[in-house]
């Protein structure tokens, strides 16, 4: 697959906004892979957490937003706890989720949830789920 990387993309408004909303400098990551190695959700992700950072570093924001990884991040903070560069990846994931929902709308259609299961969930599951998956 052919990927074009340009200075304009790397310095795009989108990258700037992601850095602003997350409070992170994406260039701080040097891809040691420790975040991905310890991520408990990695096995269901289509891209590893550090690959998401790589895409943002290269200005490939659209591709990062298309990945299911941002929705499978459980904000568990394991990666942030272990990152030797102090990159707060959960904040980066949150910024990407927010941006994805600004562009494409909510990730969760409440009306399509399984009503029977819903009756069994603890309150905090909905509140957290709705906050992560709806704008």
């Amino acid at each position, binding site marked *: 697959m052919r990927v074009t990387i340009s200075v304009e993309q790397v310095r795009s408004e989108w990258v700037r906004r992601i850095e602003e*909303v*997350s409070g992170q400098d994406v260039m701080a990551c040097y891809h040691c892979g420790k975040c991905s190695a310890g991520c408990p959700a990695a096995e269901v992700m289509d891209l590893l957490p550090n690959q998401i950072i790589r895409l943002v570093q290269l200005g490939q924001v659209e591709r990062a937003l298309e990945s299911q990884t941002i929705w499978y991040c459980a*904000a568990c903070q394991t990666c942030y706890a272990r990152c030797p560069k102090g990159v707060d990846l*959960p904040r980066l994931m949150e910024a990407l989720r927010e941006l994805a929902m600004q562009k494409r709308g909510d990730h969760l259609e409440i009306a399509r949830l399984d009503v029977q299961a819903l009756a*069994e*969930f603890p309150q*905090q599951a909905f*509140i*957290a789920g709705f906050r992560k998956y709806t704008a």
Partner: protein
Amino acid sequence: MRYFYFPGCTLETKAVGFNRSAKDAAGALGVELVTLPEWNCCGATFPLSTDNVLDLAGPARNLVSTAEAGGDTLAVACATCFNVLRRTNHFLRNNPETLEKLNAFLERPQPYAGQVEVRHLLDIFVHDIGLEAIRQCAVPGLRGLRAAAYYGCMLLRPAAEIALDDPERPDIMDQLLAALGAEVVDYPHRGECCGAYLTVKSPEASMPMSYRILSAAERAGAHVLATACPLCQFNLDWLQARLRQQYASYRPLPVLYFTQLMGLAFGLDTSGYGFEQHYVDPRPVLTQAGVLGEVKAP
């Protein structure tokens, strides 16, 4: 000892057994938990974006209410509420501008200055009451029961803000369970995520996450898993019906709140602890281990 207590939404509804047993266990140790007047939902996740000022108003209001009621400590049983309230407090203490904005927004007579300490019950029990006093209170105790302490995310991370235990090698709950007389099993993945809110939309994602934890504890010989979080309890318990179908090596493992185990160890009346509401019924295992009286046939 007397503390203001924050129950949170889930403990007042789905996790009443956690709420009941937390108050009971505290009472048995001489800790009076006074429910915070006018408490409100903590928000269930700490807002992670930098433009989060309004999202902090909810959790912050509980801190303000504690200070206004004359309290210096807010005791929390739910690990998630504890995490959100503690992170909020930490953030406000370190961001005076946001604190000022929120004080202006909340319009309360006394501006909040970050003076309240948010503490988890594990911390209060182990550090204020002490393991020796707990050991003395643990009659009949949990002898015969092998318990695995599960910490998950919320009691541990981010460590600089939560500061309850070592995020890679926590043992505060292990110490407590050992003081109750249980045989504590060592197992990996004790601080790993169960899947949290992923279950709302994608149980297929939280299933392998929960399975890793349950199967590690079960292989280590645990009779039960102990938790401090109603969402962990739900995922690790509710998902087992699906795990049974997905994994040939699946073995059932009851998931209990650490306070339910305290109630059992202290010989308290556990009839309001909601054991019958658990998906994997803990009563047969508890009975077999000799820590719960005979279960009557339904």
